[in-house]
């Protein structure tokens, strides 16, 4: 079974903190994604990566950066957390085309 693991299920951080969300997949997938999910807005793509050290901006990259130093790991970084970044963050991976596999999500609250 494909496994996508996100490091934290719940996080509470203070405004202005630098926040790291980690995601690891165990199926040697080329592509990895970070989405945020908010009520009424669905899943919105923040960043995705199609290879090690390669990244592309999604629809809402402002305030975020990413890192992919190893194929299995894709990190989302909030440079200076703000309250409007309170959300559910979902990581996903895919082999290239077709089904994407999701992690369990990280619910981040910024206070």
């Amino acid at each position: 079974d494909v496994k996508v693991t996100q490091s934290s299920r719940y996080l509470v951080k203070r405004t202005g903190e630098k926040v790291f969300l980690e995601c690891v997949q165990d199926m040697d997938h080329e592509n990895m994604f970070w989405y945020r999910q908010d009520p009424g807005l669905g899943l919105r793509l923040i960043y995705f990566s199609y290879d090690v050290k390669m990244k592309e901006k999604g629809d809402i990259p402002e305030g975020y950066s990413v890192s992919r130093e190893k194929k299995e790991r894709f990190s989302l970084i909030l440079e200076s957390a703000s309250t409007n970044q309170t959300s559910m963050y979902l990581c996903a991976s895919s082999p290239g085309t077709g089904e994407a596999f999701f992690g369990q999500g990280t619910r981040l609250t910024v206070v």
Partner: protein
Amino acid sequence: EDKVVQSPLSLVVHEGDTVTLNCSYEVTNFRSLLWYKQEKKAPTFLFMLTSSGIEKKSGRLSSILDKKELFSILNITATQTGDSAVYLCAWEPSGTYKYIFGTGTRLKVLA
């Protein structure tokens, strides 16, 4: 801008009812359409459709794609309380690795 619209936004039915969920899109070229079920956290994969007019079935769930009219439907027959979830559709545009998600349809099945 590519856009995916799902309808209805929410739906309440009784056990045994049949429901039809809609997904329409404004994407010029795409590789596939995917349906996911999200109960609490991670979306889980249901179907992937690439060809127009071919129905995919899995138990009480079925889905079909109309490439000409630019929509897909997900049917659930003889609904059960365990079908209560948010149903998401996503498009995989040609020439890119990303997925564009709709806002989802929240289905509640009452006993």
